[in-house]
C-alpha cells in the first residue's frame, strides 16, 4: 500500500476499493437502567468523483432511535421520518437532481442500512444517530450492550424475497477480515456513589471519576469493530418496583418497572398442568464451533442432571438438518439421563447452516402430553435472517409451549434471541464469548422452573393504552410496562399492577407510587411508542395471518407509520431521510461511484481466533471496581486500570491500583486451568437427587473421607438409612447457602430435587448430631470450615 492510499485514517482495502468510513464514536449516558446513546459515523471522500456510500450496521434490538442528522461541512441537516419507500424515492430523486441526501432504513430491529449520497471529492459527512433504551437488569446489575458488527446471517433456501430483494442482501454487508475504521467510546454513568462495580467482559476499559459520574473509555485509543461491546454495572442496591409519570403535549405517559422478588406459583396463576416437559434445543451449526459448543454441552449436562424425576425431557440438535435424542420426550430417570449424557458427548458443531425452523416445527407439531406443559430451552447464536418465520411459529403455540432462549457464540443475533422468547412467553439471556455460559444457563433455568409472571395489567383509574398489552415478568429482573393516557390532566399519585388468572381474578398486585419526570430527560413517550410499534411488528395478540412480518396489513402498517411519525422514532415501515438542496452551481448530476462499506467478520466467528477457555472469567474470578466503603470522599481522577486487573469479590477494599493490579494478575494466573467449584459441586448431584461424597467434593470442602464417615457414624437417626448420603447432602446444601449465597440464581433450581429429598428424609428419620438437628449442626460446621478456609 502506498502512502497516497492513506488519508486521515481512510485505507484502501486489499481488493483496491476505497472505504470512506473513517471511524465511529459512541457517546453514552447511563442513569440506572436508562441509556441515551449518540453514534457518530464519519465519512470522507478522497476520490476524484462524487461518491454514494452504503453502510450496514447493528444497534440494540430494543433501541428507540429518535434522532438522525448529518453534519456536512459545518452545516446541520436534520433527518425526518418518512414512510420507507417514499423516503427512498425522496433520497433517490434528490441524488438524481444533484443534491446531497442521507437515508437510514431499518432492515431488522437490530440491523440498519445507512446511505449517504453525493459526497463531493474532498468532502466529509458526519452522521449522528441518537437512541434511547432501557438496559436489561437482574438484581442490582445492568448490562449495557452495543453491537459493533453484524455476524453473517444464514438464509434458508426457502426464504422469500422481501419486495423482490433477497433477505440475505438486506441483512448481510460485504465482509472483510479487517476493516480500516475503528471505534472510540465514552460512557458516562450517573450516580457514582451508587455504583458498586463496573466491568466489561468484552473490552479492556479505562475508568475515571469526575463529580458524580463514572466515565468509561477504551484502554486503547481506538478498537476494532469486530465484537459486541458489553458493560456490566453493578449498583449498590437491587432494582425495586418504580413508577414514573411524564406529560408530553396533550398526553400523559406512565412507565412501571416491575421487579418481582418472588415468582407467583404458576399452577395457581394460570391453571396450568402440573407435569413439566423440558425440551433442550442446541444449535450445532458451524458458527457454534470452538468453545461455544463445549460450554453449551457442559451447561446442558448440569441441567439434565438437575431435572426432577417427575419431568419428561428431550434434546434436539440442529444445523442444516436436525436430530433428536428420543422420538418423543421420556421420563427423567437413570437410564434416560445416561442416554442423554452419552448423546451429548458425541455432539459436535458440525451440522452446517443454522436452520432453526425445522426442529421447532417438529417439536410443535404435537401438543404436549395430557397433564404436561412444555418449555423449550433454545441455545443458539441465532445467526439467521428468517427471524419472522421463527417468531410466527413460536407465537402461534405460546398457549401450550413457552420458549426461552440463550444467545451464545460470537456475535449472537440479539433480536432473534430476545424477540423469540418475548413472543413465546419465555426468558432470555445473552452471553458474551468472554463470559462463561454455565452460570447464565443455570440462571435461565431457574427462571423457567420458577415460572413466568404473566397477565399483568396497569390500573390507574383512567383509560390507558398499555404496551406491551400482555407483559411477562420474571423474578429479580426489571420488566417495563408503559401506558398512554389521552389527557394531560391525569392526577393520580400511584398505580397498581395486577396479575390476573384465566378466570379474571386478581392473583397478586403491586401498589407503586408515581414519580413525576420530565419528558425531555426521560422520554417515556418515545419508549411507549417503541413498545407499541414493536408489538404491532411482532404481531403480539394479533390474529394469525401472513407469515412475513413486513406484510403487516394496511391498517396495522398505517398505525405503525403514524406512531413512528408522531413520536419521531424509526420502524421497519419508516426511514429517516435528510436532504440538503444544493445551489445550481454546486449541483452534480454526473455518475456517482458507489462505495459499500465492508464489515469486519466477528472475532471468533466459526471458531476463528476464539478465546481460550482458561482466559474466560467465571463469576468468582471477575475483576471489577468496587468503590472504597470507608472513604466516600476519595476521588480517583482519570485512574486507568485495565479491566482484567480488577476484582470485585470482597467489597471491603479498593483502590490502590498498583497493589490491586499485582493481586489481580496473581489471581488470574492462579485460576488458569481451574474449574469453577460451584459448577463442580452441581455436576456431582446424583440423578435421583442427593450427593455422594467423592474426592472432588472432599477437596472443595476440605474434609477427609474418614472424618465424614466418623461423623455419619455419630449421627443419631430413628431408622437405619444411608447416613453418609444424608449427611453429605445436608453439608453440601448448607455449603451452597453459606459460600455461594450470592450465586443462588445458579444453583437453587438445580439442587431443588436434592433439597426435597433431604427434607423428606429429615421428616422421616429426624437425624441429629451432638443432640442438634442435622441442618443446624451442618450450619455451625460449615461456618467454622469457612472461617478456617
Amino acid at each position, binding site marked *: 500500500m502506498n502512502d497516497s492510499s492513506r488519508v486521515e485514517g481512510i485505507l484502501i482495502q486489499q481488493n483496491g476499493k476505497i472505504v470512506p468510513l473513517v471511524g465511529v464514536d459512541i457517546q453514552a449516558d447511563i442513569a440506572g437502567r436508562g441509556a441515551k446513546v449518540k453514534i457518530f459515523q464519519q465519512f470522507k471522500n478522497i476520490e476524484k468523483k462524487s461518491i454514494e456510500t452504503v453502510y450496514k450496521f447493528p444497534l440494540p434490538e430494543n433501541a428507540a432511535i429518535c434522532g438522525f442528522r448529518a453534519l456536512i461541512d459545518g452545516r446541520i441537516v436534520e433527518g425526518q421520518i418518512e414512510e420507507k*419507500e417514499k423516503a*427512498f*424515492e425522496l433520497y*433517490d430523486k434528490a*441524488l*438524481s*437532481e444533484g443534491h446531497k441526501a442521507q437515508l437510514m432504513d431499518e432492515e431488522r430491529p437490530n440491523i440498519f442500512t445507512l446511505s449517504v449520497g453525493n459526497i463531493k471529492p474532498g468532502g466529509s459527512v458526519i452522521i449522528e444517530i441518537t437512541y434511547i433504551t432501557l438496559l436489561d437488569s437482574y438484581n442490582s446489575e445492568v448490562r449495557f450492550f452495543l453491537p459493533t458488527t453484524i455476524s453473517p446471517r444464514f*438464509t434458508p*433456501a426457502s*426464504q*422469500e*424475497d422481501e*419486495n*423482490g*430483494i*433477497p433477505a*440475505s*442482501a438486506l441483512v448481510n454487508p460485504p465482509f472483510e477480515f479487517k476493516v480500516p475504521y475503528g471505534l472510540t467510546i465514552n460512557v458516562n454513568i450517573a450516580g457514582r456513589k451508587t455504583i458498586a462495580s463496573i466491568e466489561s467482559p468484552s473490552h479492556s476499559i479505562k475508568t475515571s471519576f469526575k463529580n458524580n459520574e463514572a466515565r468509561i473509555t477504551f484502554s486503547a485509543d481506538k478498537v476494532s469493530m469486530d465484537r459486541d461491546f458489553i458493560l456490566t454495572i453493578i449498583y449498590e442496591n437491587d432494582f425495586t418496583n418504580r413508577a414514573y409519570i411524564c406529560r408530553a403535549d396533550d398526553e400523559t405517559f406512565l412507565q412501571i418497572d416491575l421487579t418481582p422478588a418472588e415468582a407467583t406459583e404458576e399452577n395457581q396463576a394460570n391453571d396450568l398442568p402440573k407435569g413439566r416437559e423440558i425440551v433442550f434445543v442446541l444449535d450445532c451449526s458451524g458458527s457454534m464451533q470452538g468453545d461455544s459448543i463445549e460450554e453449551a454441552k457442559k451447561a446442558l449436562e448440569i441441567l439434565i442432571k438437575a431435572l426432577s424425576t417427575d419431568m419428561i425431557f428431550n434434546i434436539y440438535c440442529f444445523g442444516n438438518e436436525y436430530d433428536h435424542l428420543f422420538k418423543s420426550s421420556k421420563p427423567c430417570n437413570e437410564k434416560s439421563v445416561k442416554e442423554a449424557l452419552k448423546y451429548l458427548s458425541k455432539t459436535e458443531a458440525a451440522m452446517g447452516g443454522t436452520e432453526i425452523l425445522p426442529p421447532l416445527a417438529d417439536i410443535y407439531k404435537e401438543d404436549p402430553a395430557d397433564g404436561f406443559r412444555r418449555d423449550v430451552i433454545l441455545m443458539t447464536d441465532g445467526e439467521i435472517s428468517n427471524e419472522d418465520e421463527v417468531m410466527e411459529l413460536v407465537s402461534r403455540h405460546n398457549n401450550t409451549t413457552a420458549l426461552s432462549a440463550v444467545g451464545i457464540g460470537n456475535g449472537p443475533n440479539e433480536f432473534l434471541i430476545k424477540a423469540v422468547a418475548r413472543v413465546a412467553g419465555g426468558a432470555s439471556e445473552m452471553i458474551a464469548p468472554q463470559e462463561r455460559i454455565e452460570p447464565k444457563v443455570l440462571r435461565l433455568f431457574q427462571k423457567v422452573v420458577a415460572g413466568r409472571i404473566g397477565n399483568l395489567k396497569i390500573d390507574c383509574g383512567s383509560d390507558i393504552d398499555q404496551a406491551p398489552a400482555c407483559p411477562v415478568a420474571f423474578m429479580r429482573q426489571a420488566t417495563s410496562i408503559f401506558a398512554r393516557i389521552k389527557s394531560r390532566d391525569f392526577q393520580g399519585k400511584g398505580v397498581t399492577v395486577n396479575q390476573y388468572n384465566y378466570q379474571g381474578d386478581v392473583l397478586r398486585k403491586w401498589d407503586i407510587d408515581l414519580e413525576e419526570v420530565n419528558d425531555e430527560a426521560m422520554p417515556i413517550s418515545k419508549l411507549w411508542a417503541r413498545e407499541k410499534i414493536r408489538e404491532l411488528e411482532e404481531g403480539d395478540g394479533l390474529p394469525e395471518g401472513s407469515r412475513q412480518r413486513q406484510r403487516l396489513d394496511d391498517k396495522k402498517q398505517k398505525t405503525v407509520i403514524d406512531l413512528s411519525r408522531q413520536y419521531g422514532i424509526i420502524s421497519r415501515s419508516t426511514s429517516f431521510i435528510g436532504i440538503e438542496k444544493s445551489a445550481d452551481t454546486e449541483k452534480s*448530476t*454526473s*455518475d*456517482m461511484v*458507489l462505495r459499500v462499506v465492508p464489515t469486519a467478520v466477528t472475532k471468533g466467528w466459526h471458531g476463528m481466533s476464539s478465546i481460550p477457555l482458561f482466559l474466560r472469567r467465571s463469576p468468582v474470578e471477575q475483576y471489577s471496581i468496587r468503590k472504597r466503603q470507608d472513604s466516600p470522599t476519595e476521588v480517583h481522577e482519570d485512574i486507568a486500570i485495565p479491566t482484567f486487573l480488577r476484582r470485585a469479590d470482597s467489597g471491603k477494599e479498593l483502590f490502590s491500583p498498583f497493589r490491586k493490579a499485582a493481586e489481580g494478575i496473581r489471581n488470574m494466573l492462579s485460576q488458569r486451568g481451574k474449574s469453577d467449584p460451584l459448577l463442580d459441586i452441581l455436576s456431582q448431584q446424583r440423578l435421583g437427587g442427593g450427593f455422594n461424597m467423592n474426592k472432588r467434593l472432599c477437596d472443595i470442602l476440605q474434609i477427609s473421607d474418614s472424618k465424614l464417615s466418623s461423623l455419619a457414624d455419630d449421627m443419631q437417626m430413628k431408622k437405619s438409612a444411608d447416613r453418609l448420603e444424608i449427611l453429605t447432602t445436608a453439608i453440601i446444601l448448607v455449603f451452597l447457602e453459606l459460600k455461594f449465597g450470592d450465586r443462588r440464581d445458579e444453583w437453587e433450581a438445580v439442587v431443588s430435587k436434592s433439597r426435597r429429598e433431604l427434607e423428606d428424609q429429615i421428616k422421616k428419620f429426624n437425624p441429629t448430631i451432638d443432640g442438634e438437628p442435622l441442618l443446624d449442626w451442618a450450619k455451625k460446621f460449615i461456618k467454622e470450615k469457612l472461617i478456617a478456609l
Partner: protein
Amino acid sequence: MTVKCYYKTMEKKAYTIEELGELTGYTRRTIRYYVQEGLVDPPAGRGRGGFYYDSHIQQLLRIKSFQEKGIGITAMVSLMQKEAPQPILPSREVMIRYEIVPGMEINISREMEIKEPKKILEIIRIAKSIAKGEMNNE
C-alpha cells in the same frame, strides 16, 4: 465500394424511473437494486437521472415472471447463468451500410463487423457478384 456509416436509433420511447416503476410494479428501491446487481442494465444517460427503454421493461418483466413462479432472486441468478445468454438489444447501435448495387444495401452492426471482418467482406463480395451476375443474366 461505397461504405457509409450512420447511427440508427433502435428504440424510441424513453421512460423515467417513476414510469418504469408504474409500468412494472416494482418500487424505485427494487429497480435500483436490480441495476446495481447487474440484473437490469443501467439507465441510459448520465447518473441516476438517466432514462430507461423498452429493453429495461422486458428485463424487469422477465424477472417478474420468474418471481411469479416462486423463484427468488438468488435462484434466478444461478438459473440465468445456466441459460444461454439472451442478447439484449442495446439502446443505440452503430450500423454500417454496404451498398451492393444501387437500390440494394446490407446493414451490418459495427460489433459484428469488428468481430468477423473477413466474413463480412466475403458476404459483401458474394452478394455483389450475385447481384451483378443476376442482373447480367437478365
